[in-house]
């Protein structure tokens, strides 16, 4: 298998970049950004339909045309029951068992509710869903999600839409080290390509983001920038980073230096 490919629930993807479809200035700009990102997976959501409004149908037409793999979310759900119902609705409407599972426990920082998340994941896995849970960087919650059958996890970098990057690197490093065989996708909170690259250098398997691209002045260009950073970070991880040191070590050979310092 090509090591540069992302594997989730037995399916492989060429790109390690997953892109959201919200908050763009227009559907066309969204589509341009998706194209520029070269992503294979896009996230999308469900909201109440009001008669005679065509907005939902319009955005769906644009997303469908991208031919990307669809990853519907349960954004806004605050209980396992709500998330399960919305996942079931998603499966029918998008004809996919894939679900980005969100159960939000706090309105202020949109922090996942770990108890509701594990409860919903257990039910949905039994119903045949391929669950990608949006979770915190907590190792024990991650283990519980794996125990109920999740085959990939999506820990946050920092709260949704904040752009603060990797908020708790100790926890994220711990997740990576303790779960070496679990696909881990950093989801949420990244604002800069350098933050995405850092996550990939740490060995994370992919990046899911939305706001940083959608709210850029030039979303397509930013999508391209993130794609480059994600690729570079992955290449660096696969190449193997050097070990950092506290003291300097000359890179040019010291033996055979011509004339300076020779009389000391």
């Amino acid at each position: 298998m090509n090591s540069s490919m992302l594997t989730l629930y037995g399916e492989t993807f060429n790109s390690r970049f997953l892109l959201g479809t919200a908050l763009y200035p227009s559907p066309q700009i969204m589509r341009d950004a998706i194209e520029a990102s070269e992503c294979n997976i896009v996230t999308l959501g469900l909201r109440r339909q009001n008669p005679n409004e065509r907005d939902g149908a319009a955005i769906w037409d644009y997303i469908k045309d991208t031919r990307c793999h669809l990853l519907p979310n349960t954004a806004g759900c605050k209980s396992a029951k709500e998330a399960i119902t919305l996942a079931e609705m998603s499966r029918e409407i998008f004809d996919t068992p894939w679900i980005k599972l969100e159960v939000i426990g706090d309105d202020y920082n949109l922090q996942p509710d770990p108890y509701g998340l594990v409860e919903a994941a257990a039910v949905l896995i039994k119903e045949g869903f391929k669950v990608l849970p949006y979770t915190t960087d907590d190792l024990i919650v991650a283990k519980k999600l794996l125990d109920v059958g999740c085959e990939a996890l999506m820990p946050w970098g920092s709260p949704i839409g904040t752009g603060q990057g990797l908020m708790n690197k100790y926890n994220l490093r711990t997740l990576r080290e303790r779960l070496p065989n679990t696909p881990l996708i950093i989801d949420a909170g990244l604002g800069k390509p350098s933050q995405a690259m850092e996550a990939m250098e740490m060995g994370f398997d992919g990046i899911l983001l939305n706001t940083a691209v959608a709210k850029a002045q030039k979303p397509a260009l930013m999508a391209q920038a993130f794609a480059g950073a994600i690729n570079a970070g992955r290449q660096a991880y696969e190449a193997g980073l050097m070990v950092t040191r506290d003291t300097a070590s000359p890179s040019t050979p010291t033996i055979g230096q011509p004339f300076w310092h020779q009389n000391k």
Partner: protein
Amino acid sequence: MSDAITVSLNGNTEALESGQSLQHALQQWGLSDKKVATAINGDFVPRSRYSDTTIDDGDQIDVVTPVGGG
């Protein structure tokens, strides 16, 4: 003549004749030909059950459609 019932459609109050199927109600609301999924009182109702699902007074009906999402 059937009695009227009141239901909640996506948070808005709607009047219906009693004994109507979900399929008929969605047609009446202009939602039957759209890409939607439905839940009644928080439980998902598969499309295959629209015609044999009867709407009761006070039901809360949610009809959702795709939107951009992160």
